[in-house]
Protein backbone atom coordinates (compact mmCIF):
# COMPACT_ATOMS: atom_id res chain seq x y z
CA UNK A 1 0.00 0.00 0.00
CA UNK A 2 1.33 3.43 -0.95
CA UNK A 3 1.31 5.77 1.99
CA UNK A 4 1.24 9.43 0.90
CA UNK A 5 4.42 11.47 1.45
CA UNK A 6 6.65 8.38 1.47
CA UNK A 7 10.15 8.84 0.09
CA UNK A 8 11.36 5.73 -1.74
CA UNK A 9 15.09 5.30 -1.22
CA UNK A 10 15.63 2.22 -3.34
CA UNK A 11 16.52 0.07 -0.36
CA UNK A 12 13.80 1.34 1.96
CA UNK A 13 11.34 4.13 2.57
CA UNK A 14 10.91 7.20 4.74
CA UNK A 15 7.66 8.87 5.68
CA UNK A 16 7.88 12.23 7.46
CA UNK A 17 4.15 12.11 8.23
CA UNK A 18 4.47 8.88 10.23
CA UNK A 19 7.54 10.28 11.97
CA UNK A 20 5.61 13.40 12.99
CA UNK A 21 2.73 11.27 14.27
CA UNK A 22 5.20 9.17 16.28
CA UNK A 23 6.82 12.32 17.60
CA UNK A 24 3.40 13.70 18.63
CA UNK A 25 2.49 10.44 20.39
CA UNK A 26 5.81 10.42 22.31
CA UNK A 27 5.25 14.07 23.26
CA UNK A 28 1.72 13.22 24.43
CA UNK A 29 2.96 10.33 26.58
CA UNK A 30 5.66 12.53 28.12
CA UNK A 31 3.07 15.22 28.87
CA UNK A 32 0.75 12.61 30.39
CA UNK A 33 3.50 11.28 32.67
CA UNK A 34 4.49 14.78 33.70
CA UNK A 35 0.88 15.79 34.45
CA UNK A 36 0.58 12.88 36.88
CA UNK A 37 3.55 14.09 38.97
CA UNK A 38 3.38 15.97 42.27
CA UNK A 39 2.27 19.58 41.66
CA UNK A 40 4.42 20.89 44.56
CA UNK A 41 7.75 19.58 43.24
CA UNK A 42 8.73 22.86 41.61
CA UNK A 43 9.09 24.98 44.66
CA UNK A 44 11.81 25.85 47.14
CA UNK A 45 15.18 24.12 46.88
CA UNK A 46 13.99 21.84 44.11
CA UNK A 47 14.57 24.68 41.65
CA UNK A 48 18.24 25.12 42.57
CA UNK A 49 20.78 23.27 40.43
CA UNK A 50 23.15 20.95 42.26
CA UNK A 51 26.73 21.71 41.14
CA UNK A 52 28.72 19.28 43.28
CA UNK A 53 28.01 21.36 46.36
CA UNK A 54 29.43 24.58 44.81
CA UNK A 55 27.60 27.88 44.82
CA UNK A 56 25.62 28.64 41.66
CA UNK A 57 27.61 31.25 39.64
CA UNK A 58 26.11 34.59 38.73
CA UNK A 59 24.04 34.54 35.55
CA UNK A 60 26.55 36.37 33.35
CA UNK A 61 29.38 34.07 34.40
CA UNK A 62 27.46 30.93 33.62
CA UNK A 63 28.00 30.91 29.86
CA UNK A 64 30.69 28.61 28.52
CA UNK A 65 32.52 30.20 25.55
CA UNK A 66 32.82 28.35 22.25
CA UNK A 67 36.54 27.65 22.58
CA UNK A 68 35.91 25.56 25.70
CA UNK A 69 33.44 23.31 23.92
CA UNK A 70 34.79 20.11 22.36
CA UNK A 71 38.21 20.71 23.91
CA UNK A 72 38.44 16.96 24.45
CA UNK A 73 37.70 16.25 20.79
CA UNK A 74 40.31 18.62 19.41
CA UNK A 75 42.84 17.47 22.02
CA UNK A 76 42.30 13.83 21.07
CA UNK A 77 42.61 14.74 17.38
CA UNK A 78 45.72 16.89 17.95
CA UNK A 79 47.90 14.75 15.69
CA UNK A 80 45.35 15.08 12.86
CA UNK A 81 44.92 18.82 13.27
CA UNK A 82 48.66 19.47 13.57
CA UNK A 83 49.04 18.07 10.05
CA UNK A 84 45.87 19.47 8.48
CA UNK A 85 45.81 23.04 9.75
CA UNK A 86 49.27 24.05 8.37
CA UNK A 87 48.00 23.40 4.82
CA UNK A 88 45.61 26.33 5.33
CA UNK A 89 48.30 28.96 4.96
CA UNK A 90 46.11 31.82 3.78
CA UNK A 91 48.65 32.54 1.01
CA UNK A 92 46.99 32.89 -2.43
CA UNK A 93 49.94 31.46 -4.35
CA UNK A 94 49.65 28.28 -2.26
CA UNK A 95 46.00 28.02 -3.23
CA UNK A 96 46.91 28.30 -6.91
CA UNK A 97 49.64 25.68 -6.40
CA UNK A 98 47.08 23.21 -5.03
CA UNK A 99 44.84 23.84 -8.04
CA UNK A 100 47.71 23.28 -10.46
CA UNK A 101 48.88 20.23 -8.50
CA UNK A 102 45.49 18.53 -8.72
CA UNK A 103 45.30 19.47 -12.38
CA UNK A 104 48.72 17.92 -13.05
CA UNK A 105 47.75 14.73 -11.19
CA UNK A 106 44.50 14.42 -13.12
CA UNK A 107 46.31 15.05 -16.42
CA UNK A 108 48.64 12.15 -15.69
CA UNK A 109 45.70 9.90 -14.75
CA UNK A 110 43.55 10.97 -17.71
CA UNK A 111 46.32 10.43 -20.25
CA UNK A 112 47.53 7.10 -18.91
CA UNK A 113 44.40 5.12 -18.05
Amino acid at each position, binding site marked *: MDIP*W*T*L*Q*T*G*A*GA*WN*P*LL*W*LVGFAVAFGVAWLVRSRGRPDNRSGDALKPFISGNEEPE*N*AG*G*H*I*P*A*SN*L*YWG*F*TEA*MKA*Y*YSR*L*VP*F*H*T*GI*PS*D*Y*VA*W*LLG*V*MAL*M*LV*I*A*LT*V
Partner: protein
Amino acid sequence: MDSLALHLPALLVAIPLFTAFLIPLAGRAGGTVRSALVILGAALTSLAGLALAARVFAGGTVLYVFGAAAPHAAIPMDSGGIPIRIIFQVDALGALMVVIAALSSLAITLYSLAAESRQSGKDGFYSMLFLLVAGVLGMVSTGDLFNFFVFLEISSLAGAALVAYRIDQGEAVEGGLKYALLSTVGALSVLMAIGILFAQYNALNIATVASRLRFGALDMIALVLLAVPLAMKCGAVPMHFWTPDTYTTAPSSITALLVVSSQASLYGLFRILFTLYGDLLRFNWAVFGWFLVILGALSAFVGVTMAIPQKDVKRLMAYHAVSQTGYMLLGVGVGLAVFADAGALAAYGKTAMAGGLFHIINHAMYKGLLFLTAGAVFYRTGTRNLNRLGGLGHAMPWTMVFFMIGALAIAGIPPFNGFASKLLIYESVFRFSPFLAILAMVVSILTLASFVKVFHSMFMGPPRAEFAGVREVPAPMIAGMAILAAFVILAGLVPQAFVDRMIAPAVNALVDRAGYIAAILGGH
Protein backbone atom coordinates in the same frame (compact mmCIF):
# COMPACT_ATOMS: atom_id res chain seq x y z
CA MET B 1 1.27 35.91 -23.08
CA ASP B 2 2.42 32.96 -25.23
CA SER B 3 5.02 35.19 -26.81
CA LEU B 4 6.28 36.14 -23.36
CA ALA B 5 6.49 32.48 -22.38
CA LEU B 6 8.40 31.76 -25.57
CA HIS B 7 11.08 34.27 -24.62
CA LEU B 8 11.45 33.21 -20.97
CA PRO B 9 15.03 31.92 -21.39
CA ALA B 10 16.12 35.31 -22.73
CA LEU B 11 14.19 37.18 -20.05
CA LEU B 12 15.85 35.02 -17.41
CA VAL B 13 19.16 36.75 -18.07
CA ALA B 14 17.88 40.00 -19.56
CA ILE B 15 15.87 41.01 -16.47
CA PRO B 16 18.74 40.87 -13.95
CA LEU B 17 21.12 42.43 -16.50
CA PHE B 18 18.83 45.39 -17.21
CA THR B 19 18.10 45.76 -13.51
CA ALA B 20 21.83 45.83 -12.80
CA PHE B 21 22.41 48.64 -15.29
CA LEU B 22 19.31 50.60 -14.26
CA ILE B 23 20.12 50.61 -10.56
CA PRO B 24 22.72 53.42 -10.68
CA LEU B 25 20.15 55.56 -12.55
CA ALA B 26 17.43 54.71 -10.04
CA GLY B 27 19.85 55.51 -7.24
CA ARG B 28 20.05 59.10 -8.56
CA ALA B 29 16.33 59.41 -7.87
CA GLY B 30 16.72 58.30 -4.27
CA GLY B 31 16.96 55.26 -2.03
CA THR B 32 13.25 54.45 -2.18
CA VAL B 33 13.22 54.30 -5.97
CA ARG B 34 16.33 52.14 -5.96
CA SER B 35 14.82 49.77 -3.38
CA ALA B 36 11.61 49.54 -5.41
CA LEU B 37 13.60 48.67 -8.53
CA VAL B 38 15.63 46.09 -6.61
CA ILE B 39 12.48 44.38 -5.32
CA LEU B 40 10.84 44.52 -8.76
CA GLY B 41 13.95 43.15 -10.47
CA ALA B 42 14.32 40.31 -7.97
CA ALA B 43 10.64 39.40 -8.15
CA LEU B 44 10.56 39.41 -11.97
CA THR B 45 13.78 37.41 -12.19
CA SER B 46 12.39 34.80 -9.82
CA LEU B 47 9.08 34.74 -11.63
CA ALA B 48 10.79 34.22 -14.99
CA GLY B 49 12.98 31.50 -13.49
CA LEU B 50 10.15 29.61 -11.84
CA ALA B 51 7.91 29.93 -14.92
CA LEU B 52 10.69 28.62 -17.17
CA ALA B 53 11.42 25.75 -14.78
CA ALA B 54 7.72 24.85 -14.66
CA ARG B 55 7.66 24.77 -18.48
CA VAL B 56 10.70 22.50 -18.59
CA PHE B 57 9.41 20.09 -15.93
CA ALA B 58 6.03 19.92 -17.67
CA GLY B 59 7.09 19.77 -21.31
CA GLY B 60 10.76 18.84 -21.50
CA THR B 61 13.86 20.69 -22.71
CA VAL B 62 13.38 24.30 -23.78
CA LEU B 63 15.58 25.70 -26.54
CA TYR B 64 16.12 29.38 -27.20
CA VAL B 65 18.21 30.50 -30.15
CA PHE B 66 19.20 34.15 -29.95
CA GLY B 67 18.67 36.04 -33.19
CA ALA B 68 16.84 33.23 -34.98
CA ALA B 69 13.53 33.65 -36.77
CA ALA B 70 12.02 31.11 -34.37
CA PRO B 71 13.45 30.55 -30.87
CA HIS B 72 13.83 26.82 -31.44
CA ALA B 73 15.45 26.98 -34.90
CA ALA B 74 18.86 25.78 -33.72
CA ILE B 75 20.55 25.26 -37.07
CA PRO B 76 20.34 27.99 -39.75
CA MET B 77 19.78 26.81 -43.31
CA ASP B 78 23.16 28.07 -44.57
CA SER B 79 25.39 27.08 -41.61
CA GLY B 80 26.46 23.67 -42.87
CA GLY B 81 24.64 21.88 -40.08
CA ILE B 82 26.42 23.77 -37.30
CA PRO B 83 24.37 25.65 -34.68
CA ILE B 84 26.32 28.90 -34.98
CA ARG B 85 24.08 31.13 -32.88
CA ILE B 86 24.09 31.43 -29.11
CA ILE B 87 21.66 28.86 -27.79
CA PHE B 88 20.14 28.48 -24.35
CA GLN B 89 19.25 24.85 -23.71
CA VAL B 90 17.39 24.36 -20.45
CA ASP B 91 16.73 20.72 -19.59
CA ALA B 92 15.46 19.41 -16.25
CA LEU B 93 18.92 19.63 -14.66
CA GLY B 94 19.27 23.25 -15.76
CA ALA B 95 15.72 23.94 -14.58
CA LEU B 96 16.56 22.56 -11.13
CA MET B 97 19.48 24.97 -10.91
CA VAL B 98 17.27 27.82 -12.16
CA VAL B 99 14.81 27.11 -9.32
CA ILE B 100 17.66 27.26 -6.79
CA ALA B 101 18.94 30.57 -8.17
CA ALA B 102 15.44 32.06 -8.46
CA LEU B 103 14.35 31.28 -4.91
CA SER B 104 17.69 32.08 -3.30
CA SER B 105 18.18 35.37 -5.12
CA LEU B 106 14.69 36.58 -4.13
CA ALA B 107 15.23 35.73 -0.45
CA ILE B 108 18.74 37.19 -0.44
CA THR B 109 17.73 40.43 -2.17
CA LEU B 110 14.91 40.99 0.31
CA TYR B 111 17.29 40.35 3.18
CA SER B 112 19.92 42.69 1.72
CA LEU B 113 17.52 45.64 1.61
CA ALA B 114 17.65 45.85 5.40
CA ALA B 115 21.02 44.21 6.07
CA GLU B 116 22.93 46.68 3.87
CA SER B 117 20.77 49.70 4.68
CA ARG B 118 23.48 51.25 6.84
CA GLN B 119 26.21 50.82 4.22
CA SER B 120 27.24 53.30 1.54
CA GLY B 121 27.75 52.46 -2.15
CA LYS B 122 24.46 50.65 -2.50
CA ASP B 123 24.19 51.41 -6.25
CA GLY B 124 27.31 49.38 -6.91
CA PHE B 125 26.30 46.70 -4.45
CA TYR B 126 22.94 45.94 -6.01
CA SER B 127 24.27 46.28 -9.56
CA MET B 128 26.90 43.67 -8.78
CA LEU B 129 24.35 41.49 -7.00
CA PHE B 130 22.14 41.38 -10.09
CA LEU B 131 25.16 40.79 -12.33
CA LEU B 132 26.07 37.82 -10.13
CA VAL B 133 22.52 36.48 -10.43
CA ALA B 134 22.60 36.97 -14.23
CA GLY B 135 25.93 35.15 -14.39
CA VAL B 136 24.64 32.19 -12.40
CA LEU B 137 21.40 31.94 -14.40
CA GLY B 138 23.36 32.17 -17.64
CA MET B 139 25.78 29.41 -16.58
CA VAL B 140 22.97 26.95 -15.91
CA SER B 141 20.94 27.87 -19.01
CA THR B 142 23.42 28.12 -21.83
CA GLY B 143 24.10 25.37 -24.32
CA ASP B 144 27.28 27.00 -25.55
CA LEU B 145 30.78 26.47 -24.15
CA PHE B 146 32.12 29.97 -24.74
CA ASN B 147 28.90 31.46 -23.43
CA PHE B 148 29.38 29.36 -20.30
CA PHE B 149 32.85 30.85 -19.89
CA VAL B 150 31.46 34.39 -20.27
CA PHE B 151 28.79 33.83 -17.63
CA LEU B 152 31.35 32.15 -15.37
CA GLU B 153 33.48 35.28 -15.66
CA ILE B 154 30.52 37.60 -15.02
CA SER B 155 29.63 35.71 -11.85
CA SER B 156 33.26 35.51 -10.71
CA LEU B 157 34.02 39.20 -11.20
CA ALA B 158 30.74 40.34 -9.65
CA GLY B 159 31.30 37.89 -6.79
CA ALA B 160 34.83 39.18 -6.13
CA ALA B 161 33.59 42.78 -6.14
CA LEU B 162 30.82 41.91 -3.68
CA VAL B 163 33.15 40.00 -1.35
CA ALA B 164 35.33 43.11 -1.16
CA TYR B 165 32.28 45.37 -0.81
CA ARG B 166 33.12 46.46 2.75
CA ILE B 167 36.33 47.93 1.42
CA ASP B 168 37.12 49.67 4.70
CA GLN B 169 37.84 46.26 6.17
CA GLY B 170 41.18 44.89 5.00
CA GLU B 171 40.15 41.28 5.36
CA ALA B 172 37.21 41.80 2.98
CA VAL B 173 39.55 43.10 0.28
CA GLU B 174 41.88 40.15 0.90
CA GLY B 175 38.96 37.73 0.58
CA GLY B 176 37.86 39.40 -2.65
CA LEU B 177 41.39 39.30 -4.04
CA LYS B 178 41.75 35.58 -3.31
CA TYR B 179 38.40 34.84 -4.93
CA ALA B 180 39.32 36.94 -7.98
CA LEU B 181 42.75 35.30 -8.31
CA LEU B 182 41.52 31.71 -8.06
CA SER B 183 38.53 32.43 -10.30
CA THR B 184 40.76 34.03 -12.94
CA VAL B 185 43.26 31.16 -12.95
CA GLY B 186 40.37 28.70 -13.17
CA ALA B 187 38.64 30.68 -15.92
CA LEU B 188 41.87 30.84 -17.96
CA SER B 189 42.08 27.08 -17.75
CA VAL B 190 38.44 26.75 -18.86
CA LEU B 191 39.08 29.15 -21.76
CA MET B 192 42.14 27.16 -22.83
CA ALA B 193 40.08 23.96 -22.83
CA ILE B 194 37.36 25.60 -24.91
CA GLY B 195 40.05 26.78 -27.34
CA ILE B 196 41.37 23.22 -27.66
CA LEU B 197 37.90 21.88 -28.38
CA PHE B 198 37.04 24.67 -30.82
CA ALA B 199 40.30 24.19 -32.70
CA GLN B 200 39.49 20.51 -33.22
CA TYR B 201 35.77 20.51 -33.82
CA ASN B 202 35.05 23.98 -35.18
CA ALA B 203 32.10 24.36 -32.83
CA LEU B 204 31.28 25.82 -29.46
CA ASN B 205 27.84 24.37 -28.98
CA ILE B 206 27.96 21.71 -26.23
CA ALA B 207 25.72 19.26 -28.07
CA THR B 208 27.69 19.63 -31.32
CA VAL B 209 31.08 19.20 -29.65
CA ALA B 210 29.71 16.21 -27.70
CA SER B 211 28.54 14.57 -30.92
CA ARG B 212 31.94 15.01 -32.57
CA LEU B 213 34.26 14.23 -29.66
CA ARG B 214 36.96 11.67 -30.55
CA PHE B 215 38.41 11.22 -27.05
CA GLY B 216 41.99 11.78 -28.17
CA ALA B 217 44.80 13.06 -25.95
CA LEU B 218 43.87 16.70 -26.59
CA ASP B 219 40.29 16.00 -25.61
CA MET B 220 41.40 14.44 -22.34
CA ILE B 221 43.64 17.44 -21.64
CA ALA B 222 40.64 19.71 -22.30
CA LEU B 223 38.55 17.59 -19.94
CA VAL B 224 41.00 18.06 -17.08
CA LEU B 225 41.35 21.78 -17.84
CA LEU B 226 37.55 22.08 -17.61
CA ALA B 227 36.76 19.73 -14.72
CA VAL B 228 39.43 20.61 -12.15
CA PRO B 229 38.81 24.40 -12.04
CA LEU B 230 35.07 23.79 -11.78
CA ALA B 231 35.69 21.38 -8.89
CA MET B 232 37.83 24.11 -7.31
CA LYS B 233 35.05 26.67 -7.77
CA CYS B 234 32.60 24.46 -5.93
CA GLY B 235 35.03 24.20 -3.02
CA ALA B 236 36.21 20.60 -3.30
CA VAL B 237 39.12 19.53 -1.08
CA PRO B 238 42.10 19.98 -1.60
CA MET B 239 41.23 23.12 -3.59
CA HIS B 240 38.87 24.50 -0.98
CA PHE B 241 41.23 26.92 0.77
CA TRP B 242 39.70 30.03 -0.78
CA THR B 243 36.23 29.11 0.52
CA PRO B 244 36.59 29.94 4.23
CA ASP B 245 38.64 33.07 3.48
CA THR B 246 36.07 34.38 1.00
CA TYR B 247 32.82 33.26 2.61
CA THR B 248 33.85 34.67 5.98
CA THR B 249 34.63 38.18 4.84
CA ALA B 250 31.77 38.73 2.37
CA PRO B 251 28.50 40.31 3.56
CA SER B 252 26.30 37.40 4.68
CA SER B 253 23.74 37.89 1.92
CA ILE B 254 26.55 37.65 -0.61
CA THR B 255 27.96 34.56 1.05
CA ALA B 256 24.57 32.90 0.60
CA LEU B 257 24.64 33.89 -3.08
CA LEU B 258 28.21 32.62 -3.46
CA VAL B 259 26.94 29.22 -2.32
CA VAL B 260 24.52 29.29 -5.26
CA SER B 261 27.31 30.45 -7.56
CA SER B 262 29.48 27.53 -6.39
CA GLN B 263 26.65 25.17 -7.16
CA ALA B 264 26.42 26.58 -10.68
CA SER B 265 30.05 25.49 -11.06
CA LEU B 266 29.05 22.07 -9.75
CA TYR B 267 26.36 22.01 -12.45
CA GLY B 268 29.06 22.86 -15.00
CA LEU B 269 31.23 20.01 -13.73
CA PHE B 270 28.38 17.50 -14.05
CA ARG B 271 27.42 18.84 -17.47
CA ILE B 272 30.99 18.44 -18.72
CA LEU B 273 31.38 14.90 -17.36
CA PHE B 274 27.97 13.52 -18.28
CA THR B 275 26.92 15.45 -21.38
CA LEU B 276 30.08 16.65 -23.11
CA TYR B 277 32.24 13.61 -22.38
CA GLY B 278 29.60 11.06 -21.47
CA ASP B 279 30.01 8.66 -24.37
CA LEU B 280 29.09 5.32 -22.86
CA LEU B 281 31.56 3.36 -24.99
CA ARG B 282 34.60 5.60 -25.02
CA PHE B 283 34.65 7.46 -21.70
CA ASN B 284 36.36 5.97 -18.66
CA TRP B 285 33.43 6.33 -16.26
CA ALA B 286 35.06 4.58 -13.34
CA VAL B 287 38.14 6.83 -13.27
CA PHE B 288 36.18 10.08 -13.29
CA GLY B 289 33.48 8.65 -11.05
CA TRP B 290 36.13 7.81 -8.48
CA PHE B 291 37.64 11.28 -9.01
CA LEU B 292 34.32 12.76 -7.83
CA VAL B 293 33.91 10.14 -5.07
CA ILE B 294 37.39 10.81 -3.62
CA LEU B 295 36.94 14.58 -3.84
CA GLY B 296 33.54 14.16 -2.18
CA ALA B 297 34.72 11.96 0.69
CA LEU B 298 37.73 14.21 1.33
CA SER B 299 35.59 17.35 1.20
CA ALA B 300 32.98 15.93 3.57
CA PHE B 301 35.46 14.81 6.21
CA VAL B 302 38.08 17.56 6.00
CA GLY B 303 35.38 20.24 5.83
CA VAL B 304 33.56 19.12 8.95
CA THR B 305 36.68 18.46 11.02
CA MET B 306 38.06 21.87 10.11
CA ALA B 307 34.73 23.44 11.07
CA ILE B 308 34.59 22.09 14.62
CA PRO B 309 37.45 24.13 16.17
CA GLN B 310 36.49 27.43 14.44
CA LYS B 311 35.60 30.43 16.58
CA ASP B 312 34.31 32.67 13.77
CA VAL B 313 30.72 31.64 13.03
CA LYS B 314 30.94 32.35 9.30
CA ARG B 315 34.28 30.61 8.93
CA LEU B 316 32.77 27.61 10.67
CA MET B 317 29.80 27.67 8.30
CA ALA B 318 32.12 28.07 5.31
CA TYR B 319 33.92 24.85 6.21
CA HIS B 320 30.53 23.18 6.47
CA ALA B 321 29.77 24.39 2.95
CA VAL B 322 32.89 22.50 1.83
CA SER B 323 31.71 19.47 3.77
CA GLN B 324 28.20 19.51 2.29
CA THR B 325 29.58 19.85 -1.24
CA GLY B 326 31.25 16.55 -0.45
CA TYR B 327 27.87 14.83 -0.19
CA MET B 328 26.84 16.11 -3.63
CA LEU B 329 30.10 14.98 -5.21
CA LEU B 330 29.83 11.63 -3.45
CA GLY B 331 26.26 10.97 -4.61
CA VAL B 332 26.76 11.97 -8.24
CA GLY B 333 30.26 10.40 -8.25
CA VAL B 334 28.84 7.01 -7.29
CA GLY B 335 26.33 7.33 -10.12
CA LEU B 336 29.14 8.18 -12.56
CA ALA B 337 31.39 5.36 -11.30
CA VAL B 338 28.74 2.71 -11.99
CA PHE B 339 27.33 4.34 -15.11
CA ALA B 340 28.61 1.67 -17.46
CA ASP B 341 27.07 -1.07 -15.30
CA ALA B 342 23.35 -1.02 -16.13
CA GLY B 343 22.43 -3.28 -13.21
CA ALA B 344 24.24 -1.21 -10.58
CA LEU B 345 22.99 2.01 -12.13
CA ALA B 346 19.39 0.85 -11.85
CA ALA B 347 19.85 -0.69 -8.40
CA TYR B 348 21.49 2.25 -6.67
CA GLY B 349 23.41 4.50 -9.08
CA LYS B 350 20.45 6.66 -10.04
CA THR B 351 19.30 6.91 -6.42
CA ALA B 352 22.79 8.10 -5.44
CA MET B 353 22.64 10.73 -8.18
CA ALA B 354 19.15 11.74 -7.08
CA GLY B 355 20.46 12.14 -3.53
CA GLY B 356 23.36 14.25 -4.78
CA LEU B 357 21.16 16.50 -6.90
CA PHE B 358 18.49 16.77 -4.18
CA HIS B 359 21.24 17.77 -1.78
CA ILE B 360 22.26 20.61 -4.11
CA ILE B 361 18.90 22.36 -3.80
CA ASN B 362 18.54 21.46 -0.11
CA HIS B 363 22.00 22.75 0.67
CA ALA B 364 21.42 26.01 -1.18
CA MET B 365 18.35 26.63 0.99
CA TYR B 366 19.57 25.63 4.45
CA LYS B 367 23.12 26.87 4.04
CA GLY B 368 21.80 30.14 2.63
CA LEU B 369 19.49 30.34 5.65
CA LEU B 370 22.35 29.66 8.06
CA PHE B 371 24.53 32.35 6.51
CA LEU B 372 21.63 34.80 6.71
CA THR B 373 21.13 34.03 10.43
CA ALA B 374 24.86 34.58 11.00
CA GLY B 375 24.49 37.88 9.17
CA ALA B 376 21.50 38.80 11.35
CA VAL B 377 23.57 38.20 14.48
CA PHE B 378 26.44 40.26 13.04
CA TYR B 379 23.98 43.00 12.03
CA ARG B 380 22.88 43.43 15.65
CA THR B 381 26.04 42.60 17.61
CA GLY B 382 28.84 43.62 15.24
CA THR B 383 30.82 40.46 15.92
CA ARG B 384 31.18 36.97 14.44
CA ASN B 385 33.32 35.73 17.33
CA LEU B 386 31.55 32.83 19.03
CA ASN B 387 33.55 33.37 22.21
CA ARG B 388 32.04 36.84 22.58
CA LEU B 389 28.46 35.94 21.65
CA GLY B 390 25.82 34.44 23.91
CA GLY B 391 22.31 34.81 25.27
CA LEU B 392 20.87 36.20 22.01
CA GLY B 393 17.91 33.82 22.05
CA HIS B 394 16.16 36.20 24.46
CA ALA B 395 16.37 39.19 22.12
CA MET B 396 16.36 37.52 18.68
CA PRO B 397 13.80 34.71 18.88
CA TRP B 398 12.98 34.63 15.15
CA THR B 399 16.62 34.48 14.18
CA MET B 400 17.11 31.68 16.71
CA VAL B 401 14.21 29.67 15.30
CA PHE B 402 15.48 30.10 11.73
CA PHE B 403 18.96 29.07 12.87
CA MET B 404 17.54 25.94 14.51
CA ILE B 405 15.71 24.99 11.31
CA GLY B 406 18.87 25.45 9.24
CA ALA B 407 21.10 23.69 11.76
CA LEU B 408 18.82 20.66 12.09
CA ALA B 409 18.53 20.46 8.31
CA ILE B 410 22.28 20.57 7.67
CA ALA B 411 22.84 17.94 10.37
CA GLY B 412 20.38 15.64 8.63
CA ILE B 413 17.81 15.56 11.42
CA PRO B 414 14.25 14.58 10.39
CA PRO B 415 11.88 15.90 9.25
CA PHE B 416 13.92 18.62 7.55
CA ASN B 417 15.09 18.52 3.93
CA GLY B 418 18.73 17.66 4.67
CA PHE B 419 17.64 14.33 6.12
CA ALA B 420 15.74 13.31 2.98
CA SER B 421 18.65 13.87 0.59
CA LYS B 422 21.20 12.40 2.98
CA LEU B 423 19.06 9.28 3.43
CA LEU B 424 19.05 8.76 -0.34
CA ILE B 425 22.84 9.15 -0.35
CA TYR B 426 23.49 6.88 2.68
CA GLU B 427 21.39 4.00 1.42
CA SER B 428 22.64 4.06 -2.16
CA VAL B 429 26.29 4.74 -1.34
CA PHE B 430 26.21 1.87 1.18
CA ARG B 431 25.61 -0.56 -1.67
CA PHE B 432 28.57 0.92 -3.53
CA SER B 433 30.92 1.07 -0.54
CA PRO B 434 29.80 0.61 3.09
CA PHE B 435 32.90 2.50 4.24
CA LEU B 436 31.89 5.64 2.32
CA ALA B 437 28.33 5.44 3.67
CA ILE B 438 29.59 5.17 7.25
CA LEU B 439 31.97 8.06 6.63
CA ALA B 440 29.02 10.14 5.38
CA MET B 441 27.07 9.34 8.56
CA VAL B 442 30.03 10.19 10.80
CA VAL B 443 30.30 13.53 8.99
CA SER B 444 26.62 14.18 9.75
CA ILE B 445 27.15 13.44 13.45
CA LEU B 446 30.11 15.82 13.55
CA THR B 447 28.01 18.42 11.73
CA LEU B 448 25.35 18.16 14.41
CA ALA B 449 27.99 18.49 17.13
CA SER B 450 29.41 21.56 15.44
CA PHE B 451 26.04 23.29 15.16
CA VAL B 452 25.12 22.44 18.75
CA LYS B 453 28.24 24.42 19.66
CA VAL B 454 27.17 27.36 17.50
CA PHE B 455 23.63 27.29 18.88
CA HIS B 456 24.89 27.21 22.44
CA SER B 457 27.46 29.94 21.81
CA MET B 458 25.15 32.37 20.03
CA PHE B 459 21.73 31.90 21.54
CA MET B 460 21.91 30.04 24.85
CA GLY B 461 22.80 31.34 28.26
CA PRO B 462 21.64 34.41 30.17
CA PRO B 463 21.44 37.79 28.39
CA ARG B 464 24.86 39.44 28.26
CA ALA B 465 25.37 43.02 29.38
CA GLU B 466 27.24 44.08 26.21
CA PHE B 467 24.25 43.03 24.09
CA ALA B 468 21.62 44.68 26.29
CA GLY B 469 20.36 46.89 23.41
CA VAL B 470 20.13 44.05 20.90
CA ARG B 471 16.71 43.38 19.39
CA GLU B 472 15.29 41.32 16.54
CA VAL B 473 16.37 42.22 12.98
CA PRO B 474 14.09 44.26 10.65
CA ALA B 475 11.16 42.64 8.83
CA PRO B 476 12.81 42.34 5.35
CA MET B 477 15.62 40.28 6.87
CA ILE B 478 13.09 38.04 8.61
CA ALA B 479 11.14 37.72 5.36
CA GLY B 480 14.28 36.66 3.48
CA MET B 481 15.10 34.01 6.09
CA ALA B 482 11.45 32.87 6.20
CA ILE B 483 11.39 32.10 2.45
CA LEU B 484 14.38 29.78 2.78
CA ALA B 485 13.11 28.25 6.05
CA ALA B 486 9.75 27.51 4.43
CA PHE B 487 11.48 25.60 1.65
CA VAL B 488 13.60 23.66 4.17
CA ILE B 489 10.47 22.51 6.00
CA LEU B 490 8.40 21.86 2.88
CA ALA B 491 11.07 19.80 1.11
CA GLY B 492 11.52 17.84 4.34
CA LEU B 493 7.81 17.07 4.70
CA VAL B 494 7.09 16.11 1.09
CA PRO B 495 10.46 14.93 -0.26
CA GLN B 496 8.98 12.42 -2.69
CA ALA B 497 7.02 15.18 -4.40
CA PHE B 498 10.28 17.05 -5.04
CA VAL B 499 12.01 13.86 -6.14
CA ASP B 500 9.21 12.94 -8.56
CA ARG B 501 8.70 16.38 -10.06
CA MET B 502 12.20 17.87 -10.08
CA ILE B 503 14.99 15.52 -9.02
CA ALA B 504 14.17 12.39 -11.03
CA PRO B 505 13.73 14.41 -14.26
CA ALA B 506 17.06 16.14 -13.50
CA VAL B 507 18.80 12.76 -13.04
CA ASN B 508 17.29 11.50 -16.30
CA ALA B 509 18.40 14.67 -18.08
CA LEU B 510 21.91 14.25 -16.69
CA VAL B 511 22.29 10.70 -17.99
CA ASP B 512 20.43 11.28 -21.28
CA ARG B 513 23.35 12.51 -23.36
CA ALA B 514 21.73 11.40 -26.60
CA GLY B 515 18.59 13.37 -25.76
CA TYR B 516 20.59 16.53 -25.06
CA ILE B 517 22.39 16.23 -28.39
CA ALA B 518 19.23 15.35 -30.30
CA ALA B 519 17.45 18.43 -28.95
CA ILE B 520 19.90 20.51 -31.01
CA LEU B 521 20.99 18.27 -33.84
CA GLY B 522 18.03 15.92 -34.11
CA GLY B 523 16.44 15.80 -37.57
CA HIS B 524 19.47 17.40 -39.28
